[in-house]
Structure formats: C-alpha cells, structure tokens
C-alpha cells in the first residue's frame, strides 16, 4: 500500500463563493461541520479561519452561514452571472 502521506491541495476555480472575516470568525468550525460537501478546511489547520479548498464544489445551500454563531463571519455569494436583476416597480409601470 502506498505510504505517501495525504496532502491538501486546494483546487481553485473561477469563482469565490465563500469568504471569511478574520476579525469576526471565532474559529469554532461550525461551518466546516455543517457543509455536506466538505469543501472547507478547518480553522487552525492552515489559516486562523476556515477556507474553501474546493470552491467549485460549493452548491450554495447556505448551511455554513446558517450554522455560524457570529453574523458576518462567513459570507456566501452567488457568482456574478447568477445575480438576478430587479428594478423599481415605478420605473416599469409608469411607462404603461
């Protein structure tokens, strides 16, 4: 059996769904334990906060944010292409 130790290699992609605020994150890793895809590396292993080693695998469920005890410590953001547009009703309806 291969004796080469497991290694952690991050796999970047074109988007960054998850960001962490080191001033707010308490390093409890509740987000890491909530993520069903397991895209996060726990706080303390490499950085003081968790981070997404496999951001492309995020399916944008928001469990990490829902389980985080500190509002704003972790932020989930859909890619720019997925930001649906909204407009003021007045700007559309007045043209009738």
């Amino acid at each position, binding site marked *: 059996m291969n004796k080469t130790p497991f290694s952690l*290699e991050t796999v970047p992609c074109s988007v960054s769904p998850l960001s962490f605020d080191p001033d707010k994150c308490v390093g409890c890793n509740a987000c890491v334990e909530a993520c069903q895809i397991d895209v996060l590396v726990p706080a303390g*292993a490499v950085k003081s906060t968790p981070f997404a080693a496999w951001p492309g695998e995020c399916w944008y469920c928001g469990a990490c944010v829902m389980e985080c005890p500190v509002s704003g410590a972790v932020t989930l953001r859909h*890619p720019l292409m997925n930001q649906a547009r909204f407009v003021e009703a007045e700007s559309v309806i007045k043209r009738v």
Partner: protein
Amino acid sequence: MQWPYQDERHVLAEETCDVLVLGGGLAGCHAAIAAAEQGKSVILLEKGAARRSGAAGTGFDHWEMACKNPGCLVTPEEMTMALYQEQGGYSNAIGHMIETSEGWDRLQDIEKWGGKIRDTKGEFAGAPFRDDKTGLMYAYDYTNRYTLRVWGTTFKPAMTGRMKALGVRLYDRTEARTLLTCGVNGRTAACGCIGVNTRTARVTVFRARAVVLAMSRPARVWLFNADTPGLCEFRPFQSVGTGHAMGWRAGMAFTMMEKSVRGEFSAAGRSFPPYGTGNNHNTWYAASMVDARGCPLPYVDRDGRELTTVDERYRPAPGQKFFLKGGVIDEPRYEWRGPETLPFDELIRRGYRLPFYADLTSMPDEERRVIWGMMVGQEAKTRVPIYQNYTERGFDPKKHLLQSYGNGWQSAAFLDQERQLFGAPGGTMHDWNLETNILNAFVAGDMLFASDCAGHACATGHWAGRHAAWAANEADLLPADRDAVEAERRSILAPLENRDGLDWREVNAAVSKAMQNYCGGVKNDDLLLQGLQLIRSFRTDALGQIACRNPHELTRAHEVGDILDVSELILEACLARRCSCSALSFERSDSDETRRDAERAFLTVKKSDGKVVTGRAPLDYSGDVTTGYERHKEGLIRE
C-alpha cells in the same frame, strides 16, 4: 499542505446492528427513527453531516399531499389515483398512498421533535391560506388544503436531535460504498454495507439484518462543468445516485430508468439559482407577473376564463373538485389543471413584451409576505443565497420587480440532449413493504421510482424503516465474506495509489459528453449500443487511472464510478424499451410501434451473473391502494 485529518487507510473496522440506513436526508433520518422506535439497534451512514445534509438540509417550504391533515377535503385514495392517472399510469401508487396516508402523521412527529409546522405567532392571522383554529398554513388550492406551507429550515436539526435521543449511531462523513449481499434460501439477501470515511479513508464493514437505501437520485450524468461542478445540478453536488449504482451492481431491479427530461435547472450557471428569479411557480405560486411595460400577465383557469382576483388563483375552477400543483406537476391534464398565466408562446403572440417580472408589489400584503419571507426563506437553498443576499442587495418586495428569464421558473432554455433525472424519474422496483428484489433491502425517498418531495421522503422513509425493523426480527446477522471484503477494500482505496493520473473531473466530463451524444433527446439502438460500449471503455480504461491525493478526492473518484454505473443502467433501460413513450419523455427514431400495447407497463432491468435481465410489471401492479395500504401498514407481509 498537510492534510488536516488523520490517515486511517490502514484501518479495517467492523460494526453490527439490526437495521442499517444508508443516507441521512429526510428519508434516511425517518427510516432510522422508525426502526429505532421499534426497539432496533440502528446505524445511519451519511456522506455529509446529517444535521444539514440532503436536498432539504437547509430547508423546504411545501409539505405536499398531506391528505389527513384536519383541513384537507381530498382523501388519500382520491389524491393517489389523481397523481397516478396524471402521469398516465407511470407513477408510483404505493409511494403516493403512503405519502398521502401518513404524511400528516410524520409532520406531527416532526413538530413534537421541535420542527415548526404552524404559524404559532399569528404572523399571518386572517390570511385566506391560514386556518385560524390550527395555525396551519396552506398552499396552492386554498379550498382543498392538501399541501401545507412549513418552516423546513427547522426540520433537519429536529430530526437529528430525535435520532440522538433514540440512540441511533450516526456515522457522518461516511460514504456508503458497497452493498453486501449473501445467499439465503436461494435468494440474494442484503447483509450490510462497506463504508469509507471521507476525511480519513477508514474502511468499516457494517453488518446488519436489514438495510434501508435512502440516497438521492442520479445526477451529473448529462450535465457537468469542471470549473463549477457544484452548480451543475439541482440536488446536492455529492448526490450522484450512489444507491442506484450500488443496487445495480448488486443485482437490484430498476424501472423507468429510461425516463429523462430536458434539463430544468443549473448546468453551471445556464439557469439562475432555483427560486431566485421572477416566476410564479412552486415557491412563488401565485405571484403576479407583469411584462416589460408593466402590463399584468393574465391568469386563466382550465377553461381559459380570465381570473380577476388574486384569491381565484388559489381556487378550483367552477365544477372542478380540486386542482393539482406541486413539485412534479408540470402540465396536468384538464381534470386537475389549475390556474396559470397564459402559456409563454401565447403571451408573445398577443404582444406581451420581454422581459417579464414577478410583481409582489401589487399583491395583498399577506400573499407578498408569505412568498417573500416565509417561502423564499424556508425553501432549500433560499434562506441565505436568495432571501438574505437579495435583501442585502436592496431588494424590497413592496418596491421592486424581480426579473424573469427564459420561459418560466426554469430561467433557462436547455438543449434536448442536456438531460436530467427530474420530475419523478425512475428508481428501484419495490413491493408494498418497500422491499426490493434483494431480500431485506428496503428503499425510501428518491430511491423509489417516480417519487419526489419532502413529505414523500419522510413518509416512505418511516414506512421503510419500520418494515426493515420487522424484517430484522426474522433475519440473521450474516457474516461478511472476508476475502470479498478485502478485495473490495483494495478496490475502494486504489485511487490513492495513483499519484499521477487523471483528474476525476476529466472522467466525469467525458461521461456527460458521451451521454449527451449517445443518450440524448432522440434515441436509437445504434447510438445506445455505441454509448454503452464507450461507457464500458471508460470503466476499464479511465476509471482506474484517476489519481487522488487525499480522501476528499477519493470520494469524488468513487462518485465518478457511480456515475458510470448509473449511465450503464440508464442505457440498458433505454435499450429495453423499444417503442417511444411520451409519458416517459422517451423518444426513439427507430420506435417499434407494434410493441406499443405490450410496453404499456413498468419495464424492469437488473444485472444477474454479469448479464442484463429485463422484466415487466403491469402499471397497476400495486393492486387496490386502500387494500394494499391497510394490509401492509402494521406489519411485514411478504406475498
């Protein structure tokens, strides 16, 4: 960088229990709870973490077809037959009868464990969808009240709490990999499963008297994007049909696997996030819609009568008992067709201009608040990425219109070969016990053919769990074949031996392209056979070349193997059906019309001694649903 978890690839552990549940979504949690409540020792394996995993881990908003709730005017039998006939008979009458008969029981259980199922604070007091005596909140048909609006974000934590209280041994981060079977009186029987820890690569043999498979349906079969694979499909990224794949390898029989539909969601950004655009379906039913000039899009009933009030959108047409709306109801037949805006093409023909918008500003206050706030906020994947993020971006439902894209809630137009298993797709063949052709192997939720939705998952999960518990009373704890286990373990860990090889993404992308090319919208024998050959060549030539640097990548490699297996299953099911069938969205250019009548049936496929065996069951194989339900609800009765 250093791997943050232990290296346990050299460990081979063993655990035993009465009932082993594979998958910790809604169905699996209910199966585990039901079996534990019968006094059985229970182990549950979950690839993610059960508290928030599965398709509904972060929520869901509708509990469909709870026909025994105190407000409902439709009986379980009526609803079951409507759902069955609505799909031309290619539907699961057994699953629907369990769902409609016991969904309300399951919902009351969840409430006892801490889930929120009613408006206890009177936030919506006086609203036409709220029963002011019970606080229950209804959706779609406010007259017949079969579907409830619920606070699904509270459900999974409540269920995991209940499992812990009952002593269910929960193995999070454990991938169920191989179904273990052995011979019992000339039949194949399930006797456990090999699990792999997704962080440490520890392999554990879980031995059990009965097994419940409660995993999700196949995905990433036609749709894949290597850059953002997590955006490819509707269900969770790591749900790829592992239950289907392990069942197929073990000789389990499947039906309706030839059914696939043109893609409806995702494909890495082709569509917008589900429930995140202006639309008037599902979570957003029945939002007002306007065109680019602000002109309202007319709602009509099944007779084309234009509806003038918002309330009429939630009522059956004159002379109609009830209408059908819900997750799998796309274009119901006249008998059950509900209120809807005019078809897209008709709107364009009449001069309505794109883009369209959802307009909550003009809706009654309680309807606006219940759509934006409760429903968008409780549905899967909406609380944070839609409700919270849009609010942060400044979206105000009293002030803003939300744009609609494409021609409806799908928000994108997919090509015919970009397919998904969506809208009540195929799954395992089963009897009234929810037992498969493999003795002591039960199925729940998405593993059933033609199933969908949260209430169905919970109700069938509970049913499968208690029937597995009763089966465990009669079953022995059988030993696993040591040599077979060791060989399987070596195969499971093999990708960790490859340090230079293929990335799993390369193989997944090849499978998806092959399935688009050889199993697209229009099929024929030549294409299907070539597709099968190509898929099998990927298995022999490419799968063994995938290289993994850690257990996380190993899990992804295993998933690609499962995707290859379910692709083979789908191709074999397509080959077995010779005649096109619109009810299954199955079209052949070489359709054999002489077989049309003979093929009005559930065709089944399974593997036996390396060969594919086809079978057939009549569309009404469930028999009378009332008799079947009553006969089987209290015990395991093997016919």
